[in-house]
């Protein structure tokens, strides 16, 4: 969980690490579905359970999503302790 903040993909994000969505690279229809559920640029996400499919916490709910779709979501990892979303 690096202190330098490289971009990472949602399927590679370690569990319990808060990150912010910076880019989504997929078909527009899928983007629409993701956005509607809260995976939208600027939103904070956290992986609850890695794997395929994986569980992501976003916007107060838990989303199950396939790793293939998660791999299209690019994130900036929040520095530890600087994220309001964490308990």
């Amino acid at each position, binding site marked *: 969980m690096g202190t330098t903040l490289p971009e990472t993909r949602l399927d590679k994000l370690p569990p319990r690490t808060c990150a912010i969505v910076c880019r989504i690279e997929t078909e527009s*229809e*899928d983007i*629409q*579905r*993701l*956005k*509607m*559920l*809260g995976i*939208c*640029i*600027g*939103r904070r996400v956290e992986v*609850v*359970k890695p*794997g*395929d*499919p994986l*569980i992501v916490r976003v*916007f*107060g*709910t*838990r*989303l*199950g*999503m*396939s790793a*293939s*779709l998660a791999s299209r979501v690019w994130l900036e990892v929040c520095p530890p302790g600087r994220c309001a979303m964490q*308990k």
Partner: protein
Amino acid sequence: MKVESSLSPAQRPQHVFTLALVGNPNAGKTTLFNALTGLRAKTANFPGTTIERRVGRVQIGQRQMIIVDLPGLYGLESSSPEEKMASDALRGRLAKHAAPDAALVVVDATNLERNLFLASQVLELDCPVIIALNMMDMARREGIHIDVEKLRSELGCAVVPVAARTGKGIDDLRHEIGRLAAGAMPEAVAHCKPNCAICGSCPYQARYEWTESVSAKVMDAAVARRSQHTEKLDEILTHPIAGMVVFAGVMLSLFVLIFWVAKIPMNLIDHLFTDIGAWVAARVSESDLRSLLVNGIVGGVGGILVFLPQICILFFALSLLEDTGYLARAAFVMDKVMRRLGLPGKAFMPLLSAHACAIPAIMSTRVIENPRDRLVTILITPLMACSARIPVYAMVTALLFPQSPFKAALIFTGAYATGIIFAMIAALVFQHTILPGGSKPLVIELPPYRLPGLRTALLHTFDRAKIFIKQAGTIILLISLLLWTLSHYPKSAPPAAAVTLTAQAAQVEKSGDAKRADELHLTAGRLTAQSSLQHSFAGRIGHIIEPVIKPLGFDWQIGIGILSSFAAREVIVSTLAVVYGVGEGSTEQGRTSLYSSLRHATRTDGTPVFTTATCISLLVFYILAAQCLATSAVVRRETNSLKWPLFQIIYMTGLAYVASLIVYQILRHLGYG
């Protein structure tokens, strides 16, 4: 000007005020709808679609009004057909559908932030709004405190806290709805407009920020512990191995329920209708009318109602599974497995249920959101070995291996496996031909686990049962009457042999040997039934199709049997009994004698009819062919088209024909003919 639009309904008393319920999936919308309307609600499709909405007429205050429960949606720009329909209906964009007079936005208090997203979009429309803050009881239990007064002032519209499941707050909500309908609620239109659509580069971002800021203002920050039990349960239920084990257990229980437990009420219904038939038969003299009443109508109605136990059990169980939040987990764990077939995880449940009966299974494909995935599932579902095929499989195995239960069991297993394998192949073929695309990558909300609402489940079950009887039942009854006509007309005189036997019986009876007389009467009756079926339209159709089915090893008598199977597959057993003149036997002993008689049935040239090749060919045909017109009726309803049930009949029967042909010809050349 906007206030006017809210007042106009009140000024026109003949106008029926329409209130649309909108909300996220899992926000408890349906429970709230049920709490407001109860049993008075009806389910109808949006015209020209298979998307359903529930409509209820209620009296609130002095006013009659219509409440419409729209499909759940996350936002107004959703791409799924159901969500799009809900959004269009709310915005009055549907042809022949005026926009509702007001919207009741159902907001889940345990998940305020997310639910406010949709609420903010509805607030931007020109439609009067009330907000029902649902699940307040659960929010309190989870330690979430929402300042309703503050929320009211933030949003500027009426916010009514309710707990739809317990009924708390419903009276207040009714009162507020009444106030709105009477045009006495200026805040319904004069509320705040978030106007997120016009600010910033990404409207979503702006809207999420707005909802975040509103919920931060009205809610305590300490909400982190909200879903701890959900998290713990999910560790097991979504685990790659443990989750699969639980899933298998749940599915097994469901299967036991619809396969075995449902048998009890099904047998009761069956007996009841046999008794009613006997009661009618005892009161009407021997005539066509009696036969029509007993076999056509009573039998037909019984044939419809017998499906109800399975339908009710399946939908009750499904509703509970959905309400608890487990259904989403089931879709989650099965996603990877089913994706290989181009289907979503949720397709597993209908396909499993189809092993009991395809009808409830096809009705339950509504859990699958994507129309393409739903259609593929509907198309392959009848390939699963339903319970109506069991008597046919039992007959064939008894004909083939009367002495070897092991071989019979192998044949049974093979028959089930063949159905499943062909269903998988069909799914893949459809994916690469007429229904390309495969399932969309999984994104599914995993709602917090909750205790299910019994009332919602019962109403849902009642609703499905009603739809089945109304829409499929009538077609099934018509088919039953048609088949009765085909097998009873035109009338023919009893054959000479039967006439002689009857005369003999009369003489024997006079001499006092009642037992012998009964036997003679029975044989005469059997010959008459055989002859009358042979001379009926059904018999003629059997003769007409004989050249077509002969390459499969079937004669015209089997042709009649196949024809009769369109009412229900298992009918072939009793039809063959009549057409080969061996009489029907419903008892165990009767069955055994039926099988042994069938084994000895011969063609006109003296060769046996049921050779190994013919038996296996018949088995393959029954595994694959689409014969159940009741299923086709349900497919028609669920796809809202004639095209798909017709396509299904053609592809399945074509497949059955080719497979039986190959099997029969190979076996015959190997010397099993």
